[in-house]
Each structure stands twice: as structure tokens, then as C-alpha cells.
């Protein structure tokens, strides 16, 4: 195992460090003190509390369901993800597992907070598979299903997946899928279609003189009418509008086969080039579509500055077979002044991609988990803010969230915190927002364990609203 590199700054005294940084950047006593306070507050928010009397009975019952063998691990995972091990009393026993393409997905547990369900799972590499702590979850989905375990009742609005633990010895990644929406059923299924590991940085300039390449092509352009038949879409920025250009004015290159790519990154290549009416057209073709590919083409000048494209269009279709689909061809249109200037530009791909990508179908079928403890308060009160009055209709509090329900939608996020009887305040972060057709709006706040037994107020901006 490599040793940690020694940082030369380690060898300097505090006085030398201050001197080195200068007045503008050296750490002041206020900085050091402020960070320490913030650090202690963060730890406090993460620190498990010793007692929750109000839910003690539920704890006994739920632990009996989950089984003591797994209880320690669930506590550890909940401590890591939610910031409180005591939330494990709300763990539901989920037992499904699924193996495909050399990997096994196995459910650990789940908790449900209203329309938000958190499914904890282990993904394990069987013989020869590569997993690592940079696991990227590609395509996944969840839906409520009918009793015959086939009929879709409802699909989730959204899903966020997060890696929370990785065990090198067993090649097991522990992930949490945050499923947002209602199942409208007693049963549900989670499906994983693709994932990837081995993140690689891409900073790859095509080793091609663009001027020569343009000269060597005799590209044919298709007018907007033809593009409309083949195109998936187009987009443009402010500069395009400022020039009073319209999509109908634009032409794009016919699909070409130049195959200009780089050794470092060959998932996408330049397939055609052209210069017409004072504009440079660069067409790229996606050869391989992989989950987590975030390398983007950029045209750069000699100083490395990126020139934004005036207009983009895309057409064709490529299916990865891993639940991913995208346009096969993308075209970028630039104004480089004149064709002579092209020798001053390079074209390349920049960003990240994953070198090990896996597709398959891993499914966890489960009974929809029981909701955790929930307290709902009718408020019907207007609070005054810098943005004007906001009418709070209800507040719903659970051990992991506070949701404020407003009579009318607002376009800004109020500051929300939990205030306890002993005066301590825990700031919460907005996690999601939903506006109903009748204009009512729900705003959900999470980020810390909410000790409901000791909660006195929910504070919205500067106003405290009693919730005891």
C-alpha cells in the first residue's frame, strides 16, 4: 500500500504558515473558532441520542421483526445515512435478492416517510466482477405493483441512489435508493438496470488539424425541413437570439463517417465537419453509450478558453441495452470569425467516464414499508417574510423530515429549523418541493434527526410555530 505523501506545508510552523499565506488568506482566530463551532454543530446533528421514550414500545416491536442479527448493521447504516442510529426502530424487514450478470443485489431494509421511501441494499460482485468505492448507479426505477406482481399501479416521480459504504474484502457496495412518490399498492418493485465503476478523467484533444480536416471534406448540408423529419431536438443560447437567428435558418450536416477520435476517449468521435455561411459545424457520433459518461466536446482557443456553440441539434438514436438511450449524432455550430481562424482552435472531449459498465436486470420485490411516526399540525397562520406574507396551512413532522404545506406556491425556499424545548436549534435543508394543481405547495426539509419527543417549534425564517 502506498504511503501518504508528505505535504511540504507539514514542516512549517504556524507562524510560517501565516506568513506564507499573507494577510489576505491567512486563518484568523475568528476563522479557526468559527470552523470549530460549525464542526461541533455538525457532529451534534449526527450524534445519536440515548433515549426516545415516546417510541420505545415501537422499538421493541420493530427490532423483533428485523431480527437482532442484522440490527447492529442497520443501526450503523442509519447512523451514516440519516445521522441517527435510533431511527433503526423504523426499519422494515425486506428480504428480496436478485442475481444477474455476475452481480447480486440484496435488500437490507427500508424505511418510509410519507411519499419518501429509502431502500437500503447490498450490491455484491460474484466471481470476477469489478466493484469499487466510486460506484455510479446508472438506470434504476421503482413502481407499485398489483397483487400478481406484474401490473404496474404507479411509477415513482424520482429516484436518487447513493453509495454509503463499500467493503473491499467482500466486494460489496451498500447503496440507498431514495424513492419519491406514492406506490398506491401494498407491493412494489425496485429495478436496477445499469451501473459503472472505475471513474476516469477525460481531457482529450483530437490530434487533428481541424483546418486540414475541413478542407478535406465536401460535406452536404440538409435544410431545416429535412432536419425536422430526423431531428430529436435543437437548442440555442442568448447569442443566437441576439443575432435574430431562427432555427428555420439553420442547416445541419448529413451524417458523416470521418471517425476522428482519440486514444484516451473513443466513446464519441467527430463524424463530420463543415464550414458554411460563416459558421463552423462539428458533428459528433456516439459510438458507445455507457452509464455515467459525462465527457463533453469543447472547442478551445489557444489560451484554453472554451467557445460556446451558437446552436446545437441532434438526431438518430442509440440504445445501450442497459436502459440507456440517446441521440446518435450531435451537431455543434460555432462562430469562429473566419475559416482562417480555425487553425487557432482545438476540439476535444473533457469530463469523466467510467471504464467498467454493467447492464442487467436486478429486482427487489417487497411489501410497501410501514410509515414511520408522523405528527400533523393544523397551523393556518400567515407569517411575514422579506418576500411577503406566506400562509402556512399545515406542518407535518417525522423523525427525519419537516414538511410545510402552504396555501399558495412560492418560488423561493424559506429557512426552516427545528427548535427544542431546551433552546437548541437544528437547521434543516430543503429536500424537495411539490406544487399541486390547486396551487397548494409542499416543501420538505431533511438533513438531521428530529427528536419529536423534545420538539417545541418549527421555525420558518424568523417566526417560530409551536408544534408541541
Amino acid at each position, binding site marked *: 500500500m502506498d504511503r501518504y505523501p508528505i505535504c511540504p506545508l507539514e514542516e512549517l510552523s504556524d507562524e510560517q504558515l501565516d506568513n506564507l499565506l499573507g494577510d489576505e488568506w491567512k*486563518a484568523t482566530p475568528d476563522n479557526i473558532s468559527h470552523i470549530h463551532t460549525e464542526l461541533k454543530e455538525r457532529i451534534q446533528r449526527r450524534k445519536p441520542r440515548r433515549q426516545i421514550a415516546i417510541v420505545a414500545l415501537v422499538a421493541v416491536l420493530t427490532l423483533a421483526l428485523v431480527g437482532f442479527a442484522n440490527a447492529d448493521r442497520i443501526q450503523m447504516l442509519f447512523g451514516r445515512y440519516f445521522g441517527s442510529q435510533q431511527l433503526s426502530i423504523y426499519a422494515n424487514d425486506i428480504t428480496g435478492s436478485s442475481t444477474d450478470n455476475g452481480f447480486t443485489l440484496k435488500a437490507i431494509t427500508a424505511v418510509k416517510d410519507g411519499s419518501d421511501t429509502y431502500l437500503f441494499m447490498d450490491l455484491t460482485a460474484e466471481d470476477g466482477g469489478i466493484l469499487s468505492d466510486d460506484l455510479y448507479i446508472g438506470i434504476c426505477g421503482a413502481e407499485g405493483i398489483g397483487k400478481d406482481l406484474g401490473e404496474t399501479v404507479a411509477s415513482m416521480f424520482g429516484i436518487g441512489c447513493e453509495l454509503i459504504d463499500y467493503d473491499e474484502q467482500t466486494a460489496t457496495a451498500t447503496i440507498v435508493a431514495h424513492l419519491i412518490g406514492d406506490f398506491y399498492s401494498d407491493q412494489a418493485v425496485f429495478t436496477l438496470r445499469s451501473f459503472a465503476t472505475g471513474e476516469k478523467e477525460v481531457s482529450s484533444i483530437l490530434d487533428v488539424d481541424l483546418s486540414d480536416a475541413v478542407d478535406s471534406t465536401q460535406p452536404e448540408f440538409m435544410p431545416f425541413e429535412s432536419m425536422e423529419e430526423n431531428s430529436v431536438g435543437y437548442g440555442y443560447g442568448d447569442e443566437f437570439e441576439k443575432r435574430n437567428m431562427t432555427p428555420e435558418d439553420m442547416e445541419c450536416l448529413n451524417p458523416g463517417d470521418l471517425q476522428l477520435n482519440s486514444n484516451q476517449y473513443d466513446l464519441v468521435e467527430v463524424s463530420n465537419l463543415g464550414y458554411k455561411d460563416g459558421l463552423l459545424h462539428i458533428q459528433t457520433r456516439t459510438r458507445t453509450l455507457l452509464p455515467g459518461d459525462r465527457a463533453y466536446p469543447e472547442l478551445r482557443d489557444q489560451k484554453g478558453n472554451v467557445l460556446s456553440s451558437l446552436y446545437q441539434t441532434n438526431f438518430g438514436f442509440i440504445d445501450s441495452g442497459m436502459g440507456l438511450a440517446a441521440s446518435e449524432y450531435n451537431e455543434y455550430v460555432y462562430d469562429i470569425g473566419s475559416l482562417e481562424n480555425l487553425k487557432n482552435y482545438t476540439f476535444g472531449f473533457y469530463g469523466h467516464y467510467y471504464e467498467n459498465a454493467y447492464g442487467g436486470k436486478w429486482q427487489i420485490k417487497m411489501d410497501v414499508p410501514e410509515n414511520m411516526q408522523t405528527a400533523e399540525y393544523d397551523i393556518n397562520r400567515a407569517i411575514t417574510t422579506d418576500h411577503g406574507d406566506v400562509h402556512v396551512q399545515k406542518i407535518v413532522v417525522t423523525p427525519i423530515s419537516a414538511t410545510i404545506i402552504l396555501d399558495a406556491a412560492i418560488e423561493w425556499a424559506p429557512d426552516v429549523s427545528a427548535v427544542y424545548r431546551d433552546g437548541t436549534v437544528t437547521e434543516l435543508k430543503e429536500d424537495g418541493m411539490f406544487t399541486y394543481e390547486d396551487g397548494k405547495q409542499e416543501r420538505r426539509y431533511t438533513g438531521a434527526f428530529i427528536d419529536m419527543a423534545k420538539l417545541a417549534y418549527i421555525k420558518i425564517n424568523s417566526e417560530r410555530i409551536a408544534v408541541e
Partner: protein
Amino acid sequence: MGETSELITKLNKHDPEALSEAYHLYSKLIWAVASGILSGSEACSREDVEECVCDTFFSLWEHPEKYDSGRGSLRSYLCLVARSRALNQYNARNKNAILYLEDFPHEAMEEFPQPVDYGELYTEIRNLSEPTRSILIRRYFYEEKPRVIADKMSLPVKEVENRLYRAKQKLSSILSHLREVK
């Protein structure tokens, strides 16, 4: 308590006092590591440095098991974490001028006769005039490549390389002399 196995043991038991002790010992160092990277961008502020320092120690609190004493000292480990987080922060604020860990190779000091006394080297560098002083600090204390230094200081790469070359000759001679005197 100092950097002892006792401190590490207590960190592994999530002892808040141990974290405070680690913070007391290394906060200025970690601040210097983070601000060295973030101060090179107008898009970054002192608040970004504060956040980076806080993240570094919070990461130690959450995952003390990630520190492996067999691979080196706790302060080296924290410097590594801080550097990585500062780079992420820098890149988030400067999407058109991405920096990579490879831009900070641990090779600069190999240019001097070994072993190098960093304290003395800094004292000598401090006596130089600008912009040579800043170039040398970035090269030998932040281990930035000449290209990165040139970008951050808006200087031609050639000028950075020339100044490094000339200063290195002079510093090598001074450091050798100091070592002989000792």
C-alpha cells in the same frame, strides 16, 4: 495528547475531545493546504476555505477508520483529504479551468539535495522578491506544476520555468551550505 496512537484510538471511538484535539493540532495546516489551492481563483472565497477545512475534519469524524496509520501520519492523511476536497471545491467554482491531482505531483522537492529542511527553504524563499517568491512557494510548498502556476499568476509558462530554474540554482547552493555549517 499529540499525534499518538491514543488520539487515533479515541477518534475511532468517536470521542469528540479527540476530534477537538486533532483540530487544535492541525487546523492551521489544513487551512493552509486548502487556501493554497482555493486562493488561486477569484471565484473562491475565504468561506470556501472554511467549508473545506470543516469538511476535512468532519470526514475524519465520520470515517476515522479510513486513516491507516501504516501508511503515514495523521497530518499527512488530513493534508491529502484537504487537498482533494479543495480541488473539488475549486473545480466546482471554475468549470472552465479544471485542476486535477496530477497537477500537483510530489516531485518538486526532488530537485534539491536531500534531505530538504523545509523551514530553512521557506526562510530563504521569503527573502526573494515577487513574483519569484510566490512562484517558488506554489512550486515547492503547494507542488503545483509550472503550467498551473502560470495560469494562476497570469504569467507565461516560460517565465515561470526560467524563474524556477534560476532560483533553484541559488537555493540549492544556500541549502547545501547551511547543511555543511550544521
